[in-house]
């Protein structure tokens, strides 16, 4: 078992996870549940919008990104959760049939002064489609337990 602790995240390193395919059915189902705008549910309507065709809710794209993060490495880590997301930019529409790869860049790591045994990692996550185009950029902090305090 390769459980990851804060010490295992090294600033400057890049890793990729996935890809994961996105289906028309799940785009429509997510939108019906959380973002019921016609541009995410109705192909013909979507063609008349800035999206130019049916596209996933950006929140669905974020949720898919989170699933790739958990399956890729966070599920095997001593994750203590995240205080939030600094910024997300949705750069291109995510279409039915797209295959998304997650690229993780570690921007910064430091111990938390306020919580001994905890450490902070600042990530940039990019989702990249099968054509190599970035569809989303996200920057956020996640907190992890430190190996020194857990073993």
């Amino acid at each position, binding site marked *: 078992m390769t459980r990851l602790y804060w010490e295992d995240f090294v600033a400057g390193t890049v890793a990729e996870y996935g890809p994961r395919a996105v289906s028309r059915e799940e785009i429509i189902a997510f939108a019906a549940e959380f973002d019921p705008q016609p541009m995410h549910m109705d192909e013909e309507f979507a063609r008349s919008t800035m999206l130019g065709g049916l596209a996933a809710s950006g929140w669905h794209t974020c949720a898919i990104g989170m699933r790739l993060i*958990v399956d890729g490495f966070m599920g095997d880590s001593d994750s203590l959760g995240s205080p939030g997301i600094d910024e997300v930019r*949705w750069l291109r529409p995510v279409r039915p049939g797209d295959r998304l790869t997650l690229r993780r860049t570690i921007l910064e790591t430091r111990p938390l002064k306020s919580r001994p045994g905890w450490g902070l990692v600042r990530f940039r996550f990019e989702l990249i489609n099968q054509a190599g185009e970035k569809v989303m950029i996200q920057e956020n902090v996640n907190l992890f337990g430190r190996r020194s305090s857990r073993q």
Partner: protein
Amino acid sequence: MKYLEDIAVGEKTELGRHTFTAEEIKSFAQRFDPQPFHVDEQAGACSHFGGLVASGWHSAATCIRLLVERRLRQEEATRSRGEPVGRTGPSPGFRDLKWLKPVRPGDTISYASEVIETRRLESRPDKGLVFALNTGTNQAGEVVISLVTCLFVDRRPG
């Protein structure tokens, strides 16, 4: 929705509220964020959260649902008066999403939205951007989530 010119900074709307059940917290997390403290009561109890907590993406997506439902209702009302409806959306992104407190099973979160900035676009004379600060407050009056959303909105034609 109204046109960009009709939207005033400081405009505040109550969006409604949602009570999170353990079942839906786990269902969302099993699909999108299967960390132990989001999918299993026992694992949550052993974590620093001290119990099952909702994925932050779940409490954010719930805010979005209430925002969108309010807008669709407004558009329907405008249409039924025979008035033109400006196009709203999509969104180029969001910023400053803060998960300030955990959301636990049984918590009722009341969401609100306040317009904080409107901006014309040099590159698209027919569109502008509207920024809103959205918050979710639990039954104890604690703000549990806040985020700044951003939407493309049509400018009034002519």
